[in-house]
């Protein structure tokens, strides 16, 4: 979503407050407490409901009536056949592979590119440092939609149209990540580097042995958000890709509705297939998402 999210200067942010103050902490159950929980449960239903319904739809047997009144949540004849049908009619594994390839490029590009550049901007003294920083901030302020057409023309000129490299290219090193890494390096105490200089270490050795190990947390945040951002990107791959063999998952899924417009069960099965990897990813790396949000107010 928003790319205008600016990085915070701090690298380690407070964990979110489960201990944030509640106005009252008495033992008795107050009507306010009941109302509070009721609203929360309602919210949880509103958020989880659609997902649960998709799961239910995807499991409903072919002969089962979809449009019961009242709607039925538990499938009468649960079946996995719709998942098979989707996989048969749409090359989902191919799309998954393409998405993964683009995401890996984005992660490697951002982690390596932003870390190196961040180190130069945060730790090295050289003429032109201010100018480069201004350029990076300027790039941060350019919304991707407004340069879409020119990006496409450049990619096309370079003969990269309809390739996965082109899909990864515009976000291969994001300005936001460069600034995040710059701030991470800048906030490190200078003593370590100074000691390494005394020991005769050159810039590369100091970078690899001294500074990088201290900003691994921020690097993980950059990696996680680059992955999700690339995995969910839709507009740019939609523009760049034309051959179905090259589709990423989002572009391929977009065709679900056209292909299966007659059967919501198949659309539901398709969305479930698409959701499983990203939910697993989120479950495993959850803490980095929240750490990242607090550190940079950035989003995938």
């Amino acid at each position: 979503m928003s790319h205008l999210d600016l990085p915070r200067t701090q690298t380690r942010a407070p964990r979110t407050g489960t201990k944030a103050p509640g106005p009252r902490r008495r033992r008795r159950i107050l009507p306010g407490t009941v109302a509070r929980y009721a609203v929360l449960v309602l919210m949880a239903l509103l958020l989880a409901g659609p997902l649960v319904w998709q799961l239910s739809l995807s499991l409903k047997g072919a002969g089962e009536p979809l449009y019961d009144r009242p709607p039925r949540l538990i499938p009468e004849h649960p079946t996995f056949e719709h998942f098979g049908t989707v996989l048969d009619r749409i090359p989902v594994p191919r799309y998954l592979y393409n998405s993964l390839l683009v995401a890996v490029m984005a992660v490697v590009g951002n982690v390596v590119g932003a870390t190196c550049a961040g180190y130069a901007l945060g730790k090295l003294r050289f003429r032109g440092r201010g100018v480069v920083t201004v350029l990076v901030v300027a790039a941060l302020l350019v919304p991707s939609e407004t340069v879409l057409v020119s990006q496409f023309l450049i990619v096309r000129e370079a003969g990269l149209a309809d390739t996965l490299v082109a899909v990864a290219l515009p976000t291969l090193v994001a300005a936001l990540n460069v600034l995040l890494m710059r701030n991470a390096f800048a906030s490190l105490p200078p003593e370590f580097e100074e000691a390494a200089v005394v020991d005769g270490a050159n810039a590369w050795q100091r970078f690899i042995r001294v500074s990088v190990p201290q900003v691994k947390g921020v690097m993980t945040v950059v990696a996680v958000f680059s992955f999700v951002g690339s995995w969910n990107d839709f507009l740019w791959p939609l523009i760049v890709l034309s051959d179905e063999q090259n589709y990423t998952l989002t572009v391929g899924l977009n065709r679900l509705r056209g292909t299966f417009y007659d059967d919501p069960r198949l659309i539901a099965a398709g969305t479930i297939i698409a959701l499983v990897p990203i939910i697993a990813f989120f479950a495993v790396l959850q803490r980095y998402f929240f750490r990242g949000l607090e550190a940079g107010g950035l989003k995938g």
Partner: protein
Amino acid sequence: MTATAPRATAQRTTARGGFPRWRSGRSLRRRDRLATHRWFLTPWLFLAPALTVIVLMVLVPFVNTLQLAFTDSTLLRTGDFVGLDNFRKMFDDERFSTALLNSTLYTVCVVPVMVVLPLMLAALVASTPRLAGFFRTAMYLPVIMSPVVVGLIWTNMLDKQGLVNELAATLHIVSEPFPFLSDRWLLLFSAMFVTVWMGLGYYMVIYLAALVNIDRSLYDAAAVDGAGTIRTFLDVTVPGVRSTMALVALLSSVAAFRVFGEIYVLTDGTGGVGGGDLTMTMLIQREGTGLQARTGYAGAISLVMFVILGGLLLAQLAVQRKQRNS
């Protein structure tokens, strides 16, 4: 979930207008402590990959868009300079006014909800410490889902025979199903709802981080004064996170104006019946790509969008500055 948050650092970044400013004074002092290197090219080698991508894929395209906007280029032909023709054409282009109206409406409707609702949720979640972790995770889940997948899910939900309409029929609210996905305005509002559904968790997590920094004694004082939940929320919580609210307003307004994925999927890529649900981003995508692309015209639309987004940013910064001074 430790309570030992480095409060001072957090306040430093949030208290002064929600997001950090580049402290030039400090970085000047810091320059003396930056490490030296022996070879003049060393920093440039470090910068090379990032600078290449940023210059080639962001800054050059931006300058290129500035040029394109004043030409009549198409995808297959480099056009001539035509001055302000593209912008004049825009005024007569019905799709442009539709897109501008829709994106503006989107921003006007979504932003207030995004500023207020996640804050209320965050206050609720924060006041139920035992469940806070669970709710934070649950509500963040839609945030990491692709707009395409979310769009498909809600297409299924809002269809003529989707769950929402079936529930409404079961409760005998309506005799006819709501045309969520075919009526121009209903579709637009459905898309807004989907955007809010996806974004709530993101802004809630931002608010949760800000709530930690409110002085707890203020809550105790409010309790002593006999303030109820709502009074406390209005008089303690809201003033305490005012700068974060400004940040959320900024982020969500820019995001709302740029909306694409949700509405693209809900309209099945058509932009609604007769293009009535086109947004600015959709218009750029349609005009600027494909073999019939009018890249010059699309460039001009992009430029207008850039100016509007820049204006949003400046307006918010001005409001923040005013708040800080008063």
